[in-house]
């Protein structure tokens, strides 16, 4: 599923049975969900939930990380717990050994 407009505060987008690609930003107070992976090519200010139906291999890719919350297969981390150095950076979030892991990706 491809979304080419900004996802605004209060909006919720769910890609059932597929990946979700967002070509714009996700605002604070917005939620994006997918059974597969989530790609955000703008800034992720809101919440992103990948692997909603339990897929532990799902990942979240963002061009600029500033999320309120991210979750993969039900395991979540609050944006407050991100250390400052990650904020505004391109990153991927994946599930490894039962923990959510953040990794830098190319700019």
């Amino acid at each position, binding site marked *: 599923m491809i979304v080419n407009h900004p996802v*605004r505060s*209060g909006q919720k987008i769910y890609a059932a049975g597929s990946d979700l690609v967002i070509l714009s930003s996700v*605002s604070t*107070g*917005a939620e994006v969900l997918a059974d597969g992976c989530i790609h955000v090519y703008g800034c992720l200010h809101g919440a992103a939930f990948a692997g909603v139906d339990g897929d532990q291999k799902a990942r979240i890719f963002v061009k600029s990380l500033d999320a309120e919350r991210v979750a993969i297969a039900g395991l979540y981390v609050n944006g407050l717990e991100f250390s400052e150095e990650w904020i*505004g950076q391109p990153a991927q979030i994946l599930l490894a050994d039962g923990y959510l892991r953040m990794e830098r990706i190319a700019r």
Partner: protein
Amino acid sequence: MTGTVITVTSGKGGVGKTTTSAAFGAALALRGKRVCLVDFDVGLRNLDLVLGIEKRVVFDFLHVVSGKAKLSQALIRDKRIDTLYVLATSQTHEKDALTYEGVASVIGQLQKEFDYVICDSPAGIEHGAMMALYHADHAIVVCNPEISSIRDADRILGFVSSKSKRAEEGRDPVREHLLITRYDDERVRCGEMLPVADVCDILSAELLGIIPESRAVLNASNTGLPASFDAGTDVGRAYRDAASRFFGEVPQPITVPMAAQVAVLESRPQRGFLRRLFRRS
């Protein structure tokens, strides 16, 4: 030829929707366009006050919607700008008196007679605000450079893109414009307000203009003049600038001290206090 519908909205109250409707509408009318301002804020009638026509309101928008008066009886022509008309709202009707069919019929009639129909939305995201944005071709989202206003603007932009008639019919989306009002360069410089670039970045919308915080706004509404009427004031120039930007002309650099903004951008710490607050709020 059918007129273009422009909705002035914000979500949050008190940011300058009515001032903007009057000033922007007058700026279009001063360029010779036929403009009708429609007040959607049922029960909190203000637009007529700002334009100094409150004593001339006999029939209003609600009378026309309910078929009790003809449109021509309710339209009030401005005495200074002869292509500017106002359709005032009712101070006594219930909010729910605005029906989809009634509003559609009035907007349709106005579109036949005017180049631009400007809908002044009430605050909030309830019925009145939804009615005001339903027919929009363009939406001007008014926003102050502070966090709660920005969040509400973002929310209302979401409604504009999903709940408008254009969205329902799958036509080209409503053109979204961002107008920053009550901008105070001094307060941005000391970090109390967000810089323009941050507001645009958070809202990802096209910037129509920046209206400075100014005494001229209150003076204008006290005297019943649209704030754009006097081109000698900073606010007047800023609204006229916004109008020319609306027509795609490249106006002089945005009226509010751009130089100062550039300085702010250059000296900006990676993450300001407000940005952090906004993220966590």
